């Protein structure tokens, strides 16, 4: 069944990804590593060298934004979970 992943169009377009993915992964970090294999550079666009999710990225697991959690990448995932990856609405 896997984890369903929704990738916002700005990321899907830039990294030539399908906006809908289904992945067999156990953690958010695994999920991003899997996508990295399909799209080099994707992981760097989501989190920085310290493992913090980048300021203008929102990452939802089953509707909860995990962006500001210290251990966001260690968030556990199971079959049937929904993960959304969006850029923030930001600018000026």
């Amino acid at each position: 069944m896997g984890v369903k992943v929704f990738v916002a169009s700005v990321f899907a377009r830039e990294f030539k990804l399908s906006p809908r993915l289904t992945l067999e992964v156990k953690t958010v970090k695994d999920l991003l590593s899997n996508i990295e294999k399909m799209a080099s550079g994707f992981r760097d666009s989501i989190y920085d060298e310290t493992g913090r999710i980048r300021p203008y990225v929102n990452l939802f697991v089953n509707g909860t934004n995990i962006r500001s959690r210290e251990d966001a990448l260690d968030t556990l995932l199971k079959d049937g979970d929904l993960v959304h990856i969006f850029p923030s609405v930001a600018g000026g």
Partner: protein
Amino acid sequence: MTVLVLVGTAKGGFIFEGSPSRRTWKMHGPFFEGFDTYDMIGEEGNGRPSLYAGVNTWTWGPVIYKSKDFGRTWTKAKSHPRFPKKNPNQLSVKRIWNLQFDLDGRLYAGVEPAALFVSEDGSNSWEGFDSLNFHQTRKEWQPGNGGLCLHTILVHPNQRKKLRVGISAVGVLGSDDGGKKWRFMNKNIRADFLPEKYPAYGQCVHKIDFNPSRPETLFLQNHGGVYLSRDFGEGWQEIGGSLPSDFGFPIGAHPHEQGKVYVVPVKGETRYPPNGEFQLWVSEDSGKSWHKSSKGLPQRSYFNVLREAMAMDGKERCGIYVGCTNGQVFCSVDDGKSWQKIAENLPRIFSVSCIKT
């Protein structure tokens, strides 16, 4: 020979292609639409004409773009300057501030929070200078108003192991062994905002420049004070006494004429030009005397020129270019005797550089 003026702005990059007379200009772009473009540079010679841009995107972080066709098309580089993962200082690159080539084709990047990186393969991979980036005094480094940024990179053209960098607000650091060891080089540069006026470090150096044919001579614009060094930064003397304000951001050394240097004075408290008149000032004798250069520049103006937004094209009749925070670019092809506007209505301009094709 065509001059391209590369302009980085708050909402992307632009390229202006000059006519042979440099009197008319054609705009290309915007590139990297919507993103802070802090620096764009071109590499001349080496048989590898390439353009690079430091673009600070809000979607995928700070990245390098490159072009192999003089800016007609751009691709994101394979790799970007990054601190080591899980580094003990918990540092991550927030912005790319400055890009610089040396004559061997190495590409250097200065970033925020202040650090220096180098790529020897056209941004396919990067290495950090750990002895600088994790300097033993780093915990005491404080940011300037724009952030803790490494904004200036100078590589001695004849002795490529000699590097000098400028950091706000830490000052000048130098290495003479290719970046293995670094020392502060702030002798006689003042820090008016600190209890000690001439500390070992903590100065808010805004920009440093040199004439590549006389690289031992450096010119420096400080947060208060314009300085000259005749020994590649070992010591500094203040030279801005007769300027209407010794505060400013960019400084530009003429690429051919020894001792000729340009600054853009603004009032420190407001960042307004003196008397609301946009003006450059020029010295032809390494700062002993200065005169105003403003013919053709707007005379009722309250905008500014940021530190990376002055450039010279290096032609025999050298063109000088300044990009302003109000989105205008001005050019002089007669050594500053007169100026013409070559672009307007751009977003806030962060950087200007030139390349000849």
